[in-house]
């Protein structure tokens, strides 16, 4: 695979992108490490191996732009700037979590960084992103929205409905399909009649791109182009990003021994691991510096989560309705 060299980017960009990639990788590795202790009582869908999609796309966004992550959403949450402490606290079910412990891993949200709430029902946040984009357009804002979703989500009818409406109204929404080949353990070949997703999306009059090798810089470049078009009012775009989930569908482990996919596939993707690749684009010193800062941040976040209190019982009854 040919990886983009990203000529327009400077060292500060690489460092920023690396920091984001590495933070996500390490934070999730820590989640996986802690998980067997049962302190995290929340089903975790890790993005380890898929970080480049969230990072590449979010690096092209402003803070006031909006992202709609999925239940596999730690990556998008962090890439968009969501706070680490509140993430860990939420996984621990603590009162200090982003959702006060009520949402857990599958329902991350951080409206202060414009991270929309994630849903555990596949595909349901796609039209929410479109609706958010409609509101932005009506308010004559130049902010944009990114909808992240998996290959499986494209099979839900709501995906087609959302594409049609977004294109009809020329809404500022970037559809990002993280195609990791599988929905749980079922490969695309047993779910898709054909592999012509991009072609299909294009029939809605939506510009499409397909990135086959997970190249974070290419993703960033394509996202930047799409964002520019959206800010000019030219409507939605679509990017299909091939990627690979290194761990099991849900939970902390690898699962190459389960027979549904081959470790060789993983090995091929490992070669192009974007964390490694971008890490090599800076001095060992800078990288070591970033790495150690990340370790400190993660240790701090875990400590924060561990020492935070569980919510008071009466919190069970709050926020059923807005305003009480």
């Amino acid at each position: 695979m040919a990886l983009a060299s990203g000529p327009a980017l400077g060292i500060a960009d690489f460092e920023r992108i690396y920091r984001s990639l590495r933070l996500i990788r390490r934070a999730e590795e820590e989640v996986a490490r802690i998980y067997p202790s049962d302190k995290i009582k929340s089903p975790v869908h890790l993005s380890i191996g898929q970080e480049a999609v969230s990072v590449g796309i979010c690096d092209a966004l402003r803070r006031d732009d909006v992202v709609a992550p999925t239940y596999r959403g730690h990556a998008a949450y962090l890439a968009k700037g969501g706070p680490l402490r509140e993430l860990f606290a939420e996984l621990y079910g603590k009162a200090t979590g982003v959702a006060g412990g009520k949402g857990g891993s599958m329902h991350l949200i951080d409206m202060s960084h414009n991270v929309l709430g994630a849903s555990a029902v596949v595909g349901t946040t796609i039209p929410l992103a479109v609706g958010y984009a409609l509101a932005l357009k009506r308010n004559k804002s130049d902010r944009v929205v990114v909808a992240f979703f998996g290959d499986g989500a494209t099979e839900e009818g709501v995906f087609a409905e959302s594409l049609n409406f977004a294109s009809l109204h020329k809404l500022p929404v970037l559809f990002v399909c993280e195609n990791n080949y599988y929905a749980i353990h079922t490969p695309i070949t047993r779910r898709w009649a054909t592999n012509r997703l991009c072609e299909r999306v294009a029939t809605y009059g939506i510009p499409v791109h397909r990135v086959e090798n997970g190249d974070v810089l290419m993703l960033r470049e394509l996202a930047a182009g799409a964002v520019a078009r959206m800010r000019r009012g030219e409507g939605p775009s679509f990017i299909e990003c091939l990627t690979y989930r290194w761990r099991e569908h849900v939970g902390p482990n690898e699962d190459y021994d389960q027979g549904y996919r081959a470790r060789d596939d993983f090995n091929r993707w490992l070669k192009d691991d974007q964390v490694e690749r971008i890490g090599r684009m800076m001095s060992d010193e800078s990288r070591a510096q970033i790495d150690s800062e990340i370790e400190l941040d993660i240790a701090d976040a875990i400590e924060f989560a561990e020492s935070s209190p569980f919510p008071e019982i009466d919190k069970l009854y709050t926020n059923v309705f807005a305003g009480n």
Partner: protein
Amino acid sequence: MSSPATNQRLLTYVDALREGIAQEMRSDPRVFLFGLDVDDHKAIQGSTRGLVQEFGPERVFGTPLSEDAMTGVAIGAAMAGMRPIHVHIRMDFLMLAMNQLINIAAKSSYMYDGQVKVPMVIRSMIGKSWGQGAQHSQGLHAMFMHVPGLKVVAPSNAYDAKGALIAAIRDDNPVIFVEHRLLYYTDAFVPEESFAVPLGKARVCTNGDDITVVGISNMLVECLRAHEILSDIGIAAEVIDPISLVPLDIDTIVASVKRTGRLLVVDNAWTNCGASAEIVARVIECAQNGKPIQVRRMGYAPTTCPTTPVLEQAFYPDPGKIAQAVHAMVRPDANGWSPDPERAKLAYQVKFRGPF
């Protein structure tokens, strides 16, 4: 109920809906209205007439046939600070939107612990008669009542249609707004100015000591007609309109039942796990340590809705059947009474005009 103030006029339910929407859209730029066919010349039986002309196609627009995504769009826009009104000409079509309504709209405030709210109104109409049949006539409010996080309102007259719709639009939560097509051309005295009917307050429509009759949506009108028939034979029914089903003003109902000792709930829906089951259960829970209470529920027959008029008539409660049921409860020993069919038919014609 007060007599009409000078700024009140007789207004139909459909015009009251339209006026309420227009007034809120004028005063709050965040409000927009969309849904299939809201902007065509039929204008959802007239309830959206003139809105696209006044507010333009950015705030009033039709959609593709995509109920699932359009509901998501409403929720997403609401999360972004807008106040969408999403219109469905049939309540039956909400079945296509259940994932968004139950799994997202109802839960967002809670599962994101207040970081977002979802102020939106789902207008949906219950159909009846002229062969609407199985899929164009369902009152499905019980499904929404079942799930915490949704408000559910079902006004029975033009006054409440306007006031409760305004309250629903102003509410910070998703509100399922249940309309009944047969009510659209009934009229009542309605203030010209904007006003809100508070959600969660029932109205005692008639006073009586013999029995408490709760009527939901269009069935409230049928109950009032039954009330007339019953008055003729000296039975005084206290007819209560809950207006809002979530939150439900059970206290008003319980207070009445404690006095009358009898409760009949008549719903525009099936009874099984319906609003009528809930009201009966709550009343019994609240009043079980006082004098014994007699209860009964009426609603759709436990069948799918047939189209042919002869069967359809048997499917629904009507004033005659309601009066008969009340009579059997109040005068259990006086067997076999049924209202004079002519009188029952007459009651059918009587318009219910408020004022409130």
